[in-house]
């Protein structure tokens, strides 16, 4: 599976895909996208890398284990529900902070963003956990 063209292309495409996935995640609240789509794109990016360079290299590039990523995602998503409890509201009520950021205009940051990040990480973690481990089965 080691074609030079694939390897070379992957070297450029993979970071772009990961960047794109982050964009999807962040833009997802207002434009098409979101944690599910973003996470899948990121997972696809690493899968591509694994095809081009092998699973070992892909794991090194990912830096953390996919299972850990999935766990962290779940934790982040569940944790995003806790702040609302401190305000005496039901679990997982969205809390928002609005503010003006120079150069960006008005921007709102809230717990649903953290939740979406959790979804993003969980999707990456689960997908890669299956794909990479299965690919190692030779």
């Amino acid at each position: 599976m080691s074609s030079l063209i694939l390897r070379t292309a992957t070297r450029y495409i993979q970071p772009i895909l990961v960047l794109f996935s982050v964009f999807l995640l962040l833009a997802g609240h207002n434009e098409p996208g979101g944690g599910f789509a973003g996470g899948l794109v990121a997972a696809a990016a690493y899968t591509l890398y694994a095809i081009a360079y092998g699973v070992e290299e892909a794991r090194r590039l990912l830096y953390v284990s996919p299972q850990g990523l999935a766990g962290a995602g779940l934790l982040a998503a569940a944790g995003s529900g806790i702040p609302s409890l401190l305000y005496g509201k039901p679990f997982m009520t969205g809390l928002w902070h609005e503010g003006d950021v120079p150069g960006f205009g008005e921007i709102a940051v809230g717990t649903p963003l953290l939740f979406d990040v959790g979804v993003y990480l969980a999707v990456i973690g689960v997908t890669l956990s299956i794909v990479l481990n299965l690919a190692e089965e030779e």
Partner: protein
Amino acid sequence: MLIAVLSGFALALIAPSLHRLTHKRTGFLVGLLPLGLCVYFVRLASGLDADVAPVRETLAWVPSLGLSLSFTADGLSLLFAALISGIGFLVAIYSGGYLDNHPQLGRWYAYLLMFMASMLGVVLSSNLLAIFVFWELTSISSYLLIGFFHEEEDSRKAALQALLVTGLGGVAMLAGFVLLGRVGGSFEVHELAAGAGLIRGDPLYLPMLLLILAGAFTKSAQFPFHVWLPSAMAAPTPASAYLHSSTMVKAGIFLLARLFPVLGGTPAWTAVVMPVGAITMVFGAYVAMRQNILKKLLAYSTVSALGAMTMLLGMGTDGAVKAAVAFLFAHALYKAALFLAAGIIDHETGERDVRRLGGLARALPITAAGAAAAGLSMAGIPLLFGFVAKEIFYEAALHGPDGWAAALTTAAVVSSMFFVAAAACVAYRPFFGAATETPKRPHEAPASMWLGPALLGAGSLAFGVFPGWIGEGLLNHSASAALGKSVDLHLRLWHGFTPVLGLSAVTLLGGVAAYAVRPRFTAALATVHRGCDAIGPQRWYDGALNGMLVVAKLQTKVLQNGYLRHYLAVILITLVGLSGSVLLTHVKEIRKHVIDSLVIAWETVEFYELGLAVILIIAIAAAVHSRTRLAAIAALGVVGYGVALVFVLFGAPDLAMTQIVIETLTVILFVLVFYHLPPFAIYANRISRARDLLLATSVGVVMGVLTLVATATQAYPTISSYYGEMSYDLAHGRNVVNVILVDFRALDTMGEITVLTVAGVGAFALLKLRLGARSRGDEEGSS
């Protein structure tokens, strides 16, 4: 009273831990509660007044169901409560001696207390549903008590039988209660009693009566439901003494008496209850007489006594109900004493067969005295309470319903004769006459054990000499409560030379004669008895149980056969049948709708949409038909991307994006796995393929039509508009789909990513944990 009932449950919870601390003294400690309760109930009883309404306490439990914890302290409930707690006290102490070194004695106390508390709940509750709850609790706790020696198969079987028989009866009873509650408009017994006339005239009266009687009869071991009672002798003796003298089996009698003011006294009541009771009485007494094992003998005599009480309540005259109450009290006293004495004999000698017992009075003087008093009471000898009870029993039988008096009196006298013989077997034979060799050398049981028979025997004597003590008080109130009107009960030791006294004399003579001919008689009829046993109710029970197992096995074989496609076929045929039939009833509208949408489609469908559809259909067909895996995967990919295009065309960019990435990853996964698999083989033959194709096509047609109908109808207003309106203002998001996922319905999404993670962990575990391979490797290594 609530505390009185619940305290038993509370103590049951801590009894095992308590036993660990106190060891041998637990019996006395635990006994303090029933003793205290008994004193409490007796005090309440002494405060009873015919002119004052009984004390009631009510605590709403599930008001929406009409279920409340309401307790009534009238004569009937207090009589039972006093017996339950009083004998409970003796049994608790007794079990300390009987189960002396049993490793699970702590657990035993827990069961015993739980049972006692449940029984108190049954007799004190005045709400039908609460009675049912406690009733079932007695079934469960008696299951635990009967099956206490769970290492033995007999115990387990007997416990299960008791649970099944009384449990089934309980369910029937619940159905009867529900009917009664609906007809009567309340679940409170005293409110129902006020509307008794209306209830008795209702067309549902007979069904509800029969259902409730099923509950009472199973619990009180009436023929042919009596089978569980003799089997339950596998229980430890203290449990038998408790369950069969004053508690479990009396619950049915209690229910009959409790509901007598509501349901009783009608021709239907008499026609059912009286004969069943009479048959049970004679049958039980006869079978009791030919038993040789002490406990079995007592068990059948209990069946008979229960029959007598049922018969009396079935007769329903004032005199009969009074007699039932008196007989009940007498029976509780002597039967508990005899059971406890039988337990002592078993415990001290290791022998249960009366034929091999004799002369124990020297070794066990106190037990012998107690048992003798109880036995004389059972036989109905003057100066003992049993005599007093039997006198008014005969009196009631003589004044029975028209045309029945002679038959009932004969039945009563005959079974009483057998009682005399049975009493002689239990209380005379083992203690007097020549001593025999027994497996253990007998010596008097510890005080904890003889206390019960001694006290109860003394009670039989004391109440026998002075029947007025209890007759004028508690028993009188009890009979009044059962009849629903104030009556006077006069118990006297000496009635003068009446026909009843003559009957008593005849009974005694006949009983002695029966005792004398007993061994020869049973030997002569042994084959007949065996034949009767072979077709008796125990066989019916076994047959029903086995039948159930056979049906269960059969249906498992048919429905749970392990073939996925069979399960699938069952589900799908049901689906097609149900939805198909609904669709067929609207076939005209649907046909019109299809034609309409055909026209619309013709006018509006864009050519690229049609092209997409054609490609999708071809790809689907290819996925089904392909001979190689790679072709199948490719076709699957085309289907996936095609679906994504549908999402693109109809305003779902999020879906399209997700679908495309997923499809890519799916194809990669498929390739990774299929790489290792063998080529497709065709396993099924042509016929089964055609059959599956037919089923699949019909499901497809139904689902297609359903889609069409679903797009055209809207049964409920959609909630989507809310999300559309609130998405930006509340959640600062313009992508409504994403806002729903991460904000409005975030908890659902949380669940979904949890499922996702579980699937991931599962796959990881499957791949990495090779438990099977490792164990096989070990085997190979060791061999």
